[in-house]
């Protein structure tokens, strides 16, 4: 039973940017944020390094990157002027839950200067801000057009550092396609669902169209339309529904960067930190997991994440899929819906991971059609990892069931 969060947190300092009002020499929203954070830390006598939760409208990940910190709680609630009251509420809840100790709620908005700057330096809003560091020095000036342009660099580095091969990663796509074959709703289930559907081989992956070397098109997820939702209930009411509960045994989140320009180790993500937090909360470890749902925007995302989740040794991520281990009937089923690679991926795949994990653990994963072997497993525990941005941000859940 969670405790009442009342009185569980307090505001301990408050500060402003160096200048406020009509700043005639001009400024940017990002500078205003950073000045305010520096000043409030100075006032409280703490280092920004001690902040483990960042709350702001939209830009919390960028603020963390800029400060060179790696918070355990990242909130970007952006609902207009009242957002900051809500951030305080959320921060209190996170603190009450024992997830973080020190949160910063930050605001920076160049309402006056943005006119002089012709809309630049505003930190966002759809069209982006050409003065953001990544806009000046990231991929844009060099023709990088989307996630594949960036993720490919991680695969090159992994192969260099660990001697892994394109074949190793291609096998992830092959095994994931096997699961799609058990899911009649998977885009690539069969030739009936898509002319390019049905089983594939490692050679098929290697011979498919090269998009950004070393990523072939079959190393890359689908781009689909998709909607999904889950309901979360309190524990005490969790058994009052017609459906079975799947318990949130553990949860964790972290980030390592916003733009790949600041990715320290191209063969590692914050899924190590976020999964460690989730395992710790659950009192379980990777060896206790009976299945895994691993974000597979690219084969390299899945391969590296397998390492970060502790399911393989460093440098050996693709081995999780080797020898039929992650295949239907294997000892650790992985991406049982057919993954972002072969089931569906609308851009933000996290919901699809959740829906499949719920179905598997509640015993409602469909059993296939026309005599096809079903994809339902016997798993009663799952690690579910989402990766966002450019291998930037991760969230990991440990889910369990007692059915």
């Amino acid at each position, binding site marked *: 039973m969670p405790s009442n969060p009342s009185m569980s947190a307090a505001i301990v300092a408050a500060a402003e940017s160096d200048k406020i009002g009509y700043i005639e020499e*001009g*400024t*940017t929203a990002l*500078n205003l944020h*950073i*000045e305010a954070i*520096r000043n409030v*830390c100075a006032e409280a006598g703490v*280092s*920004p*390094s001690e902040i483990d939760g960042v709350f702001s409208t939209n830009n919390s990940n960028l603020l963390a990157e*800029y*400060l*060179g910190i790696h918070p355990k709680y990242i909130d970007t609630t952006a609902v207009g002027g009242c957002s900051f009251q809500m951030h305080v509420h959320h921060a209190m809840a996170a603190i009450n839950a024992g997830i973080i100790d020190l949160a910063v709620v930050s605001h920076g908005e160049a309402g006056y200067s943005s006119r002089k700057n012709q809309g*630049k*330096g505003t930190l966002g809003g759809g069209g982006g801000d*050409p*003065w953001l*560091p*990544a*806009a*000046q*020095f*990231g*991929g*844009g*000036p*060099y*023709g*990088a*057009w989307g996630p*594949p*342009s960036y993720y*490919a*660099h*991680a*695969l*090159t*580095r992994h192969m*260099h550092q660990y001697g892994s091969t394109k074949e190793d990663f291609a096998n992830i796509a092959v095994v994931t396609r096997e699961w799609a074959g058990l899911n009649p709703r998977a885009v690539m289930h069969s030739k009936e669902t898509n002319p390019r559907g049905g089983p594939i081989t490692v050679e098929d992956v290697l011979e498919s169209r*090269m*998009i*950004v*070397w*070393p*990523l072939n098109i079959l190393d890359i997820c689908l781009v689909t339309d998709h909607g999904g939702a889950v309901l979360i209930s309190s524990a005490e009411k969790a058994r009052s529904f017609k459906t079975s509960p799947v318990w949130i045994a553990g949860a964790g989140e972290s980030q390592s960067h916003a733009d*790949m*320009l*600041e990715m320290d180790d*191209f063969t590692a993500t914050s899924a190590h930190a976020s999964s460690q937090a989730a395992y710790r909360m659950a009192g379980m470890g990777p060896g206790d997991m009976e299945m895994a749902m691993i974000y597979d925007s690219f084969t390299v995302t899945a391969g590296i994440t397998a390492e970060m989740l502790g399911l393989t040794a460093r440098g050996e991520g693709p081995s999780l899929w080797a020898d039929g281990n992650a295949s239907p009937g294997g000892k650790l089923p992985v991406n049982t819906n057919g993954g972002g690679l072969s089931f569906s991926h609308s851009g933000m795949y996290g919901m699809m991971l959740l829906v499949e994990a719920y179905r598997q653990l509640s015993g409602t994963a469909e059993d296939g059609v026309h005599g096809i072997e079903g994809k339902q497993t016997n798993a009663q525990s799952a690690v579910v990892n989402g990766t966002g941005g450019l291998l930037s941000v991760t969230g990991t859940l440990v889910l369990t069931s007692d059915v």
Partner: protein
Amino acid sequence: MAEYNKSIPSPDPYVTQPFWDGAKEGKLMLPRCTTCNRAHWYPRILCPHCHSSNIEWFEASGEGFIHTYAVQNRAFGGWADETPYATAYIDLKEGDRMFTALRGVNAEDPTSIKIGARVKIEFEQASEDVFVPYWRVVD
């Protein structure tokens, strides 16, 4: 000057201008914190290592090494004319890392490009005031 048909960065006059001023003169200017004496990239008003606001600019060597790379077989706008071309993250001799498109490599043969290869910076004029940094393999 030949027309530069690719995306041109927008220098930010509040933080990054010294870099762009240096680029115009063919120099790589980097920010360095005078409290902890470490360089950083991208430019900031706060040192990401020690959180000091004491930042100075200095002229760097313009030398580095390929940390990792990829070959862009698909691109848009002016870059579409250059495919396939190689992009890379460069480990700067002074520390930290920049992104770039590589010059002096054969992108048709991706495995001919080597992680760890030595590179030097050069600048291509994109507009009257903006010179875009590129790195050339010199090994």
